[in-house]
């Protein structure tokens, strides 16, 4: 890729940094016992604070709480199953005005998740209704990696409750790479 072409791409990507990545979203359902039970069984996580009301009441939590790692599950968008494979796994149609689509169009079609950092301010209880907002934190310069050339894209999602108090955050970093450049000269 020519240098000025690279600069144009870099400049286009930079425009998204510090701005919302997609619209803010509201969880389709409040935190609820059936989804907690589903998770507890799927992961065979027998921590009694998730389902045993009597025992949970004797702990610092004072009652049932949701498994902390479910944070993102509460706000996952409702999927449109038909066509999900053709969309590369995206639950719904994605607009083109976002850095991921810009990178896809420029040939950086590969995606590899590299980092996840979850922070919990408090554990969630049945009845909590979450909202999220996501901001693009940074985009790296173009790097040469084992998978080819690409950019590291980092965003931070903030989770708030019905009182607009922050209950948790997640930093997520992916590498968007161009599989055709694998083994390119450094």
């Amino acid at each position: 890729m020519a240098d000025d072409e690279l600069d144009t791409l870099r400049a286009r990507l930079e425009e998204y940094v510090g701005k919302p990545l997609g619209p803010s979203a509201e969880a389709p359902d409040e935190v609820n016992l059936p989804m907690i039970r589903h998770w507890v069984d799927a992961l065979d996580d027998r921590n009694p604070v998730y389902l045993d009301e009597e025992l949970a009441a004797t702990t610092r939590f004072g009652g049932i709480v949701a498994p902390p790692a479910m944070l993102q599950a509460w706000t996952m968008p409702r999927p449109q199953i038909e066509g999900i494979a053709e969309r590369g796994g995206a639950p719904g149609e994605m607009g083109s005005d976002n850095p991921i689509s810009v990178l896809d169009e420029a040939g950086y079609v590969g995606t590899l998740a590299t980092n996840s950092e979850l922070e919990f301010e408090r554990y969630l209880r049945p009845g909590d209704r979450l909202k999220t907002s996501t901001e693009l934190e940074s985009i790296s310069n173009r790097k040469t990696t084992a998978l080819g050339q690409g950019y590291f894209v980092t965003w931070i999602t903030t989770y708030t409750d019905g009182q607009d108090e922050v209950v948790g955050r997640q930093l997520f970093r992916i590498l968007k790479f161009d599989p055709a450049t694998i083994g390119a000269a450094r």
Partner: protein
Amino acid sequence: MTSERNRSKRSSEIAVGDELPPFDLPVTSTLIVAGAIASRDFMPAHHDREFAVAQGAPDMFMNILTTNGYVSRFITDWAGPESMVRRIAIRLGAPAIPGQPLRFSGQVAQTSRDGDECVIEVAVRAANELGDHATGTVVVSLPLA
């Protein structure tokens, strides 16, 4: 599911350098799909082997929410129901795929006091034959005791 399950660690029992009891997770297609659907993640790579292979993966693979869920379980199985996970920060590596058990291991890296709580930082690793699936740090707190 006994009283042992319901017993929490006392903060005074925990010291830097302590190893957590290792945990071996037998990863199967069913286990991967169960976690993906419980986390409402319908990406085909987490339930459709052909799709995953076409994308360059060796097989269908575990989603990140499930990985975080097992990391959390590994920590709270050790620390007990009074423990509160405050942070799970992981670097992602080799995929977790059917037929490759994941071994979770951890070591207490640091302890500190925050008000009436003991804050414990655990260095964690989940690895299979392909290499490190996830490595990182979990911060968990317990009431001071």
